[in-house]
């Protein structure tokens, strides 16, 4: 049972800003994902919550209590490190038991708790192995088991899947989702992978260069990105962005004319998602020669060049054309997102 509140939390090293004025309340039992490109301050934020890094400014509260001056051990958080940080001299059983042992909980209960945790992550057969004798996926599960064994207030995970191969990542992701549902503990999960964020999160925090860009549910972030950074970071492929001018409610860029926008005149950045657009024979808002065609299996991705930018639209999987053929893409005003040409902030809703 823990609510976490970050109030104006910043971290600076000299003049370098790692995290800038982070404000957020994470309600009890929420699964929160910190998402952003490498080096944006996700790990630093998590380490400040764990107590491994002192914030330069601001307060961190757990259940309404300021914990800035508490040691990590007194915050009742558990953390899964990116490198797993298993204790190399202890076997799997001892690794999982370690938090119970150092916290001095009743030794009679240890075995049962360790067995329960290891069963949850399907490690029962490996309890007597040393970490060096385990595969990457097994090590990762030892780290998970060690974190859940003492039922902490807060669960912190730093890119727990990033060292696994693609297939294992999908299955472990599902396992983590199931586990978090079962444990119902406040969880903060760091990743640079937007698919992980979308599949796991109750709420996502998108960060860039230490600054929070947007906080919202996966759907909100996907449907209403707060700025061009979020728009271009979320979704696969990322949102198409075109620079152009609006005059009399009509957006104009090379090969492009989109009418029916309710916005004042001036330069804007217009965005739309490839899967919202439609490839038509003619009569679309973009008419341009095909730059490239990609067969995805379930669909065909058609790209054209508008100004300097590559703009893609999803066509039916049976769509066939040659590079250089003229194509028309239908982009009705309802699917368009508008962003300030200068700041990149979202305009309207």
């Amino acid at each position, binding site marked *: 049972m823990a609510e976490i509140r970050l109030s104006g939390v910043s971290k600076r090293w000299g003049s370098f800003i790692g995290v800038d004025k982070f404000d957020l309340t994470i309600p009890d039992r929420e699964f929160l994902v910190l998402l952003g490109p490498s080096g944006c301050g996700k790990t630093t934020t998590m380490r400040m919550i764990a107590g*491994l890094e002192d914030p330069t400014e601001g307060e961190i509260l757990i259940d309404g209590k300021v914990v800035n001056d508490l040691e990590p051990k007194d915050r009742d*958080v*558990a*953390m899964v490190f990116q490198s797993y*940080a298993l*204790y190399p*001299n202890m076997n799997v059983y001892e690794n999982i038991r370690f938090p119970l042992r*150092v*916290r001095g909980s009743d030794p009679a209960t240890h075995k049962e708790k360790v067995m329960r945790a290891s069963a949850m992550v399907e490690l029962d057969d490996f309890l007597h192995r040393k970490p060096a004798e385990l595969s990457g996926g097994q090590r990762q599960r030892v780290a998970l088991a060690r974190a859940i064994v003492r039922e902490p207030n807060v669960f912190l995970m730093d890119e727990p899947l990033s060292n696994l191969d693609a297939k294992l990542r999908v299955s472990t992701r599902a396992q983590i989702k199931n586990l978090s549902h079962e444990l119902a503990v406040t969880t903060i999960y760091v990743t640079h992978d937007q698919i992980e964020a979308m599949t796991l999160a109750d709420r996502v925090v998108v960060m860039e260069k230490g600054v929070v860009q947007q906080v919202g549910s996966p759907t909100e972030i996907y449907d209403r990105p707060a700025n061009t950074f979020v728009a271009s970071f979320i979704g696969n492929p990322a949102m198409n962005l075109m620079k152009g001018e609006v005059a009399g409610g009509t957006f104009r860029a090379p090969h492009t004319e989109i009418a029916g926008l309710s916005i004042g005149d001036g330069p804007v950045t217009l965005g739309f998602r490839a899967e919202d657009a439609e490839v038509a024979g003619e009569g679309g808002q973009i008419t341009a020669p095909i730059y490239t065609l990609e067969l995805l299996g379930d669909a065909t991705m058609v790209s054209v060049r508008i100004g300097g930018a590559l703009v893609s639209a999803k066509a039916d999987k049976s769509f066939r054309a040659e590079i250089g053929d003229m194509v028309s893409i239908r982009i009705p005003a309802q699917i368009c997102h508008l962003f300030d040409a200068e700041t990149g902030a979202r305009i309207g809703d």
Partner: protein
Amino acid sequence: MASKAQRTPTGLKIAANLFVVVWLILAAFPFLWTFWGSFKVELDFFSIADWTNALTGKNTEATYGRPFTGAGYHGAWVQEEFWRAVINTFIVCFFVVLTSLTIGTLGGYALSRSGFRYTFWLLIIALIFRAMPPITLVAGYLLPFFEWNLWGILPTTIIVLVAINQPFTLWMLHSFFQNIPKELDESAKVDGCTQFQAFRHVIVPVMWPGVITTGLFSFLLAYNDFAVTSMLLSESNRTMVPEIAAFLGTTYTEGNVMFAVAAVVSATAPLFVLVMFFQRQIVSGLTAGAVKG
């Protein structure tokens, strides 16, 4: 089945083995020669007339009726009470190793985990002090030790040896600690340890081979030291190495040199035992970079 690349030509194999055997004989020869000679009389081992006397023991046989004699050992251990020097050596070594390992382990750990820039300069200064010949330091110590009445006793020597030893221990342990990922401490702290508990429960067990290796090196430094012990210890408090030197210095009595030879053999034997005993830890300590997070 050995792959082609692993298969060595027979000629090369023989040459390699031959080389090892020759090298082994060369390296072991001084020890074997001394060991053999320690059971002879001075006139044999240091024979001017015929060096083969050292092998055959002609004069030994003439004196004692057998080609071997324990006279050198008896003289050194019983007559000259060499066992006092042995005890002194072990007292000195024990406290030097204990003190320099304690300070070195804690200090090396602290330096390896500190983000401050001064750690680099501390280590550089330590290296400079380590590079100085110990004798240059001893010259400076002598006068104050005389004035304060500290000269000649074991504790003074221990402190000086620790001071000379410490930079090396600090360096060596520091580099061992740096190979241990910081996340290991951090993970332990999140799991519920204080900084010291993290050190004791997680870091030291991983570090153990490194501690053993460093301890052995500083043991050998103290055990083999001549410059400090010969200058700072009074006659009654001598450790083995200056005691052996003293035996050698009294050549006017025939036979005393053989006390030195016997004492040399006595002083070397424990080292073999020690290295044999710790060899597994030493090997893993010297490759301690292999610690995985």
